[in-house]
C-alpha cells in the first residue's frame, strides 16, 4: 500500500527562488499568468504550481490547511515541515483542490495587522490571459483580462465581500498545471 514519497525540489534554493519571483510578479501584476519551469512531480492531486508555491512559502511557522488528501499531506509534512491544521480559520496558508472554504471562515487579519491574513492557494483547471474577467487596481496599468476555469460559481460574490474588507482580507493564488496567477485583496474583478 505505502508508496515511496515523491521528491521535493531537486535544487531547493534556486527552484524556491524561481517560484518566489513568479509569485511576486503574479502578486504585483494581478491577472498576469506566470509559468514555472522545473521538474517537480508532486503526488496527486497537487499540480506543479500549487505544490511549488507551498514548498516556497510553507515551513514550521505556517499552519497549513488542505483538502488534498493523505498523500499530499505526508509529502508536505516531509518536504515543508509545516504543521497541518483541520480548521481553515487557523491556517496561514490554504491549499484547496476542491471547493474552497468560504472566505469569511478564513483568517483575514485585523485593522492594525492586516498582514496576518491567510493566503489561499486554489487549484483550478485553466488560466488564460487576455480574455474573460476584467481586473483593475494596484499593479495594473489600465486593465488586465483573465479567464479562470474551474472556480466555484459564487467566487465573484465571495471576492466582492473579501475586497470590501480592505485592508483586511485574504489573498488568492490560482494554480493550473505549471501556470499561476494571483489575486491580491485590492483587485477589482468585473465580469465580461
Amino acid at each position, binding site marked *: 500500500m505505502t508508496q515511496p514519497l515523491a521528491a521535493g525540489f531537486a535544487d531547493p534554493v534556486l527552484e524556491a527562488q524561481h517560484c*518566489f519571483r513568479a509569485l511576486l510578479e503574479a*502578486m504585483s*501584476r494581478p491577472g498576469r499568468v506566470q509559468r514555472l519551469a522545473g521538474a517537480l512531480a508532486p503526488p496527486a492531486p497537487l499540480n506543479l504550481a500549487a505544490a511549488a508555491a507551498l514548498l516556497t512559502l510553507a*515551513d514550521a511557522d505556517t499552519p497549513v490547511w488542505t483538502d488534498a488528501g493523505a498523500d499530499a499531506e505526508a509529502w508536505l509534512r516531509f518536504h515543508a515541515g509545516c504543521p497541518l491544521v483541520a480548521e481553515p480559520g487557523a491556517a496561514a496558508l490554504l491549499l484547496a483542490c476542491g471547493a474552497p472554504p468560504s472566505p469569511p471562515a478564513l483568517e483575514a487579519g485585523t485593522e492594525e495587522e492586516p*498582514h496576518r491574513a491567510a493566503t489561499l492557494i486554489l487549484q483550478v483547471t485553466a488560466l488564460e490571459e487576455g480574455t474573460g474577467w476584467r481586473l483593475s487596481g494596484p499593479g495594473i496599468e489600465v486593465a488586465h483580462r483573465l479567464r479562470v476555469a474551474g472556480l466555484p460559481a459564487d467566487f465573484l460574490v465571495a471576492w466582492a465581500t473579501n475586497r470590501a474588507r*480592505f*485592508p483586511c482580507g485574504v489573498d488568492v493564488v490560482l494554480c493550473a498545471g505549471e501556470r499561476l496567477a494571483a489575486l491580491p485583496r485590492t483587485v477589482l474583478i468585473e465580469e465580461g
Partner: protein
Amino acid sequence: MSTATGYNFAYLDEDTKRMIRRAILKAVAIPGHQVPFGSREMPLPYGWGTGGIQVTASIIGPQDRLKVIDQGADDTTNAVSIRRFFARVAGVPTTERTSEASIIQTRHRIPETPLREGQILVYQVPMPEPLFRLEPRVAETKRLHAMADYGLMHVRLYEDIARHGHIAISYNYPVMVNGRYLMAPSPIPAFDNPKMDRMPALQLFGAGREKRIYAVPPYTAVRSLDFEDHPFEPVRAKAACALCGSRESYLDEVVTDDRGGRMFLCSDTDYCGERQAAVQRDAAE
C-alpha cells in the same frame, strides 16, 4: 570576482528567506502597509542598508543583474561594498547602468532614467514610520494607520506653512499610497516623489533596524501630501549640471574651495555619464 564558499546562495539561510518572502508578498498585497519581519544580523551594521540587503537577498536569483546606488552614485563606499557583497555571495552579475539592471538597490534616490516593467527597486529605509516624529508610541501609530487617521501629519504641514509660508520638507516627504496608507518614501529628495506615482517597476522597502518591509506595486497611485492652496512642489537647485549640462536632473552642490566657490553636479552618476558620453559621440561624428 569568485563566489565565496561556505555561504548559502545570497547569504541568508532558506528559513529566513521564506519568512522575508512571505512578508514581501503581504506587503505587495497591502500597498503602503508596514509588515514586521524578523530582521537578521548582517555582516555590516544597521544603518548601512541591512533592510534593503535582506530584501534583495530574498528576491535575487542567478538570472538577475544588480545595480546599487548610494545617493545616486554607483561608486561610493556603501554602493560598492553592497554590490561586491552580492557578487561574492550570490555570484550575480552587476552593472552601473540603470537600463541594464533587473534589481536596483538604492539609498535615498530614484534613478533619473525612467524604470520599466520587469525591474524591481529596493529602497534602504532608516525609519519606516512616517508619524515617528509626531507620535513616538508604536502602538499608537499602528492604531492611527488602522483608522487612516493622518490629521497629525496635516497639522505638521500646516504649521510649516504658518511658520515658513511653504511646506519645509525637502526629503522623506510623506506620501499617500493608493489613497489609503501614509508612507515614508525613505529619505529620497522630494524631487523624486513624483517618480513613485504609477511607476511601472515594483518598489520594495526594507528597514533592517526597525524590522519593517513595505511595498508599492506597479502602476499604483502615490500622492505627496499637500493642500489645495499649497500644492506639492518638487524642489531642484536652479542650475545646470557642470559636467553634462542637464537642467532636469537632481543636482548635488559641491563646494570647491574656501572662498565660496561651488559647482552643481548630477546626483545620478550613470545618467550624467551617459549624457557626457552621448555629447562626445556627437562631437566625434
